[in-house]
């Protein structure tokens, strides 16, 4: 079996040109061969004791560090070296020697267990070399892509930067414009404002007059109604029939109470009635209404009647520019025609100024938004060379048997049932979370939709080198903690020089 390996050019292996099988105890790596000298007492590698050489690999543990039993399972902390010619050498724990399970691809760990192991080193080596080869190709291409990405990102960043500068410059102009237009607007609004105030005042006055007249009419009507005997006086007795006037609402309207209502008098004439009407009018129910079988309790019904009281009528502010509506108000308005034209003109001027002002403000806001967006984008950590920039504002999907998973890098991860149902947030962009020496290989998305009785959902995204940018798998290893595998050229490392890869792939030969 060694012959095949000897066919490989050996010149590559420094100082090992004389590749012959080096005699050494089972399980000892070549690097430690010199400590195991046939026939000479063996000193434990930790120096703790020295034992005769025949106690090396005699299936009894003499050294605390397990070094006397490199090839047996006797020591709990020992390790066994498999050469694995054709593949990669490895150390396995001593406990895996002769345990019936093939651990070393060269089968050397199962020399006495009855397990039938097949030497798979060459096959594994071949497969590994192939996959390394493939990986190397991917890495190579990926790394080229990465360079492009970096370039692109650089360009994009510059673009953004200059755009930002441009916007910021433009912003100053717009800000000035806004201020200017604000002044114009305020000036233009002055006449309109005055007109409006005038109008408002007249409206209030008119309302007061109407209110007063209505009240008077109501009072007169009430007086007539109350004055049952038409003697021109409303007496205590006459008033007493109006239980609704009961001042303490205890259900009985006593004479004293009525007298109180009448200002201490037994009866009042129309003019005195005017003085006391104020005490009554809020509660007074016209007898024509009172005939209605429901009494005080049905008060809400009354409100259903058309309200004639102008107080509740809104001031027609918004209608001020609408000429038709103005007709109604002409009676209380002595506006001349010129006045009216003036008013309309001032309105149109003001409106124009307002529109101009608002438009400029909108423009400013738009610029602000753009600035903010660019600043936000620029603030993201897109990697040491900004190679992850291209992922920004993109989304990638993977469909599994049950769900469609979607990742929008630097934004969020979500999951949607394949056959209908609402989307679940699996986390929003949190941070880079790889190991300290390789931070940009893991992304963490946090604070997704909460889980029942549990934490909010979160997703860990593992990035590996690939030519394509794609989601390769998703899983939920723990409840509500998702794991997503994602390939991107952006994590492809610079390939090692080809000859180094070659040596690596064959480094097993060192162990011949």
């Amino acid at each position, binding site marked *: 079996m060694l012959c095949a390996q000897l066919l490989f050019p050996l010149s590559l292996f420094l100082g090992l040109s004389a590749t012959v099988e080096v005699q050494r105890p089972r399980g000892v790596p070549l690097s430690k061969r010199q400590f195991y000298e046939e026939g000479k007492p063996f000193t434990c590698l930790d120096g703790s004791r020295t034992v005769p050489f025949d106690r090396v690999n*005699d*299936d*009894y543990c003499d050294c605390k560090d397990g070094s006397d039993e490199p090839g047996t*399972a*006797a020591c*709990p902390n020992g390790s066994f070296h498999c050469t694995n010619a054709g593949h990669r050498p490895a150390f396995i*724990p001593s*406990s*895996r020697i002769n*345990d*019936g*399970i093939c651990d070393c691809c060269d089968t050397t760990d199962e020399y006495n*267990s009855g397990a039938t192991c097949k030497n798979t080193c060459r096959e594994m080596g071949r497969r590994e070399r192939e996959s390394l080869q493939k990986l190397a190709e991917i890495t190579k291409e990926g790394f080229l892509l990465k360079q492009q990405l970096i370039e692109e990102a650089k360009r994009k960043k510059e673009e953004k930067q200059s755009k930002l500068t441009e916007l910021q410059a433009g912003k100053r102009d717009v800000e000035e414009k806004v201020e200017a237009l604000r002044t114009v607007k305020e000036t233009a609004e002055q006449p309109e404002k005055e007109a409006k105030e005038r109008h408002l005042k007249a409206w209030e006055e008119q309302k007061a007059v109407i209110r007063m007249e209505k009240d008077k009419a109501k009072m007169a009507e009430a007086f007539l109604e109350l004055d049952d005997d038409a003697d021109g006086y409303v007496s205590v007795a006459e008033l007493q029939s109006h239980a609704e006037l009961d001042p303490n609402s205890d259900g009985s309207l006593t004479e004293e109470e009525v007298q109180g209502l009448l200002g201490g008098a037994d009866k009042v004439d129309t003019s005195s009635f005017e003085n006391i009407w104020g005490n009554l009018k809020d509660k007074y129910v016209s007898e024509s209404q009172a005939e209605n079988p429901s009494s005080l309790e049905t008060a809400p019904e009354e409100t259903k009647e058309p309200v004639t009281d102008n107080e509740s009528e809104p001031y027609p502010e918004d209608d001020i520019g609408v000429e038709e509506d103005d007709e109604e108000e002409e009676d209380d308005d002595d506006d001349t025609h010129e006045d009216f034209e003036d008013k309309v003109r001032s309105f149109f001027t003001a409106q124009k100024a307002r529109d101009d002002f608002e438009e400029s403000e909108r423009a400013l806001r738009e610029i602000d938004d753009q600035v903010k967006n660019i600043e936000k984008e620029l603030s993201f950590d897109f990697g040491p060379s900004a190679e992850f920039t291209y992922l920004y504002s993109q989304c990638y999907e993977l469909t599994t*048997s*049950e769900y469609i998973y979607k990742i929008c890098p630097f934004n969020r991860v979500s999951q949607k049932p394949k056959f209908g149902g609402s989307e679940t947030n699996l986390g929003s962009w949190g941070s880079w979370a790889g190991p300290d020496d390789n931070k940009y290989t893991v992304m963490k998305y946090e604070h997704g939709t909460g*889980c*029942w*009785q*549990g934490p909010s959902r979160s997703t860990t995204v593992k990035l590996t080198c690939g030519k394509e940018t794609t989601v390769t798998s998703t*899983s*939920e*290893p*723990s*409840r*509500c*903690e998702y794991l997503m595998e994602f390939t991107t050229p952006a994590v492809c490392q610079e390939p090692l020089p080809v000859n180094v890869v070659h040596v690596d792939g064959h480094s097993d030969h060192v162990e011949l």
Partner: protein
Amino acid sequence: MAASMCRMERCLFVLLPFFLGVAQAVDRSNFKTCDQSSFCKRQRDIKAGQSPYRALLETMELTNSRLTLQLINDNNKVRLLLELYRLQGNMTRVKINELKPLKPRYEVPDVLIQDPPTEPLSVVAQDENGVVLSLGADEQRLIVSARPFRLDIVEGPKVLLSLNSRGLLVFEHLRLRKDTIAHKISSTVGSMWDRIRSVFSSKSQDDAEDGEGAEKTEQQAGGEQAAEGDQLKEEEELPGTWEETFKTHTDTKPNGPTSISLDFSFPGVEHVYGIPEHADTLKLKTTDGGDPYRLYNLDVFQYELHNPMALYGAVPVLLSHNTERTMGVFWLNAAETWVDISSNTAGKTVFGKMLDFVQGSSETPQTDVRWISEAGIIDVFIMLGPKPSDVFSQYASLTGTQAFPPLSALGYHQCRWNYNDQEDVRGVDQGLDDHDIPCDFIWLDIEHTDGKRYFTWDPNKFSQPKDMLQGLKDKRRNLVAIVDPHIKVDSNFKVHNEIRSRNFYVKNKDGGDYEGWCWPGNAGYPDFTNAEMRAWWASMFAYDQYEGSMENMYTWNDMNEPSVFNGPEVTMHKDALHGSWEHREVHNIYGLYVHRATAEGLIQRSGGVERPFVLTRAFFAGSQRYGAVWTGDNAAEWGHLKISLPMCLSLGLVGISFCGADVGGFFKAPSTELLVRWYQAGAYQPFFRAHAHLDTPRREPWLFGPENTALIREAVRQRYALLPFWYQQFYNAHRTGQPVMRALWVEYPEDSVTFDIEDEYLLGRDLLVHPVTEEGLKSLTAYLPGKREVWYDVHTFKKHAGGQSLYIPVTMSSIPAFQRGGSIITRKDRVRRSSACMENDPYTLYVALSPEGTAEGELYIDDGHTFSYEKNKAFIHRRLTFNDGVLSSSNLALDSQFTTASWVEKIIFLGARKPASVTLKTAGGSETRVEFEYDSALEVLSLRKPGVNAGADWTVLLR
């Protein structure tokens, strides 16, 4: 797994009415108190006093080993039949049934392994007041007193145990319902009927004794009942006798009241134990002023500690103990049962007791126990001990011993609800190897199935189960897949269709197939009490029936109380029907039958060759014969870790040795410290399985940093090194019925200090373990029993005197454990990734010398997984003794035959003197010198590589 709470997203609609608002702890309102269980309340309302029962001595019949006589209730004139048996092995059986029940009452089958062999009973004396029977040895007598009826078992002048001494024998006889004709007659004709009855009944009684037809008997019984007068009428008027409603569930109770009760008094006893399963102390508490201990198999969501509520399993066996004697009472009844315990010394302070003693006014301490069951008959086995080990043997002779598990089942089990898919399983298997943590089993919970259809696989996540199983097999590991007894009602599901077409489902009260909600949604419940059904179920485990199964796949039965999410108390309606029996009558044994049928299935699939391994959550007396149990859905809390000791100790006392708790706690996420401590404790408990709820974060042992991974690895490695010891303990339990995990008092019955100890225990007799079960602990105090004993710290080999409380400083790596001086423990110190990998590895003997300089132990070896040890005597059983400087290995089973590749690599003597030389003599007579090392500070002598085969005869001489 197996919370009654499923993923809310999926089945909130099912569970909403039951579980809303119970997220934090058990919702007690889901479960009955004694007051809410009408028979318990009725019974408990009857207070101790003069018994209405009288023994009719003239009816006494005595055959060689059986005595029968009739008892009459002077209030209602209903007659009972008392049967007394003297059983082999110092036991007495007391059976009481109605003399002429309207229809048969349920007598629990399939629990006793045989008709218990009897021994002759003889009458020593007899007069009109009673009969005295001899129980054989030690002047033991059984005294039957006639008026009022009571039984006393005495030894010489000492009363050991009395039955009905408090007059609480109550037997609700079967009767016709009020609105039946008989009742109408009685209420209309009233007193006239009364007069007729006295004539009629005495006549028909004679008829009955002549063995006349059942029809007449029925008339008589009906007549008697109808005419029994006020007392009976009152009984019937009590609410809940013919119908009972709890929450939204109505129990129709077509048979009316059927409960039974009997009291037992133990003079001189202050300590009683047993009647699991309860999350409570080892020593049973008095129940005055609270609820009795309840035995009713229930799926209790997030159970609470330290209360007498029922849990998943029930073993109606109670042990009494004092310094002189240990006894047991086995109440063979499968219906809902409550046990009241009272004590005349409870509440007395030590000082009070001392004062009594000094003043000589001390009344004898006494513990009174009252059993109440809803249906069935009184069938009691009184185990008279006198030693704890005798009680264990006695109980084992009745219900059998612990099944001898495959060796692998004693290894570490890695479980989670759920390992998501095959890739996940492969990853966990690999993770164990990457972190060098030994493991024998990976488990799959309900999510592995296709829509909770047991015996199937999720087509996406577990599409190639055999590949997965082969992958584990290549690592010499095994898998457990869950099979619950609720079957999805789905006409496309083969298992359901077969059960339905064979008419194997439990029936509802109206005769249709009973259906309830469980994991799959609507589900049927196979009638496991039916032997035909069990045979069919067992056949389902055949490799060609259970697709994707292989020989390294075993089974887990969960939810077999049975759990019914929408049933009363989350279980089956009591008026559901198992053939002619009501669920009420069989409830507590249902889970045992599920376990049994499954275990039989695993045996059959291998043609009877391989030992099964089945874990169950519900259990009953006798469940030990079918496999392992665990303490159900506990929580990741320190209190739950702590209670796992008394819970398993209690099970050990009643025959169930293969017990464990979910390591880490099922609900909630454990702190790292708690997880590590739980692994350390679990490594020294019989069933060692880590498990976690679906909603908890992952907690495989390597997820908590290298330091904690190392601590957990070390705990698991200690377990594996001791596997030969564990295996031998289980062999012993299987052969003799002695528990594996023992309360201290079991081995030190005269040392009253041990009676309350539940934070440490013994494995076998020789290994004392006091795990750390409290947070942040820096030290603890362990009691080392035995005034004339010495104990060796298994980690440091330091020697400590027995009969003292030892202060032990602890660190995060501490698992305080001590080997008893005088014992020899065998270990395999070459720990590998699974037990199978260690099969041929050599042994190290730890010989811990007694103060007299002696030691003894045993070594048991077989193939680890088949019944050959039983069928072909293919095993090695050696006795190891050390005496006068000679250690020898001799054969304990001369007719056995087995060869092993294992040899003895090392012998370590603890507490030894330095010898001048050490010689090994083998069977061939050859003598060789053995090299040794001696540590004079620790008195530890290590022999280097004796190298003899573990199955051979040999001696080692220290000179």
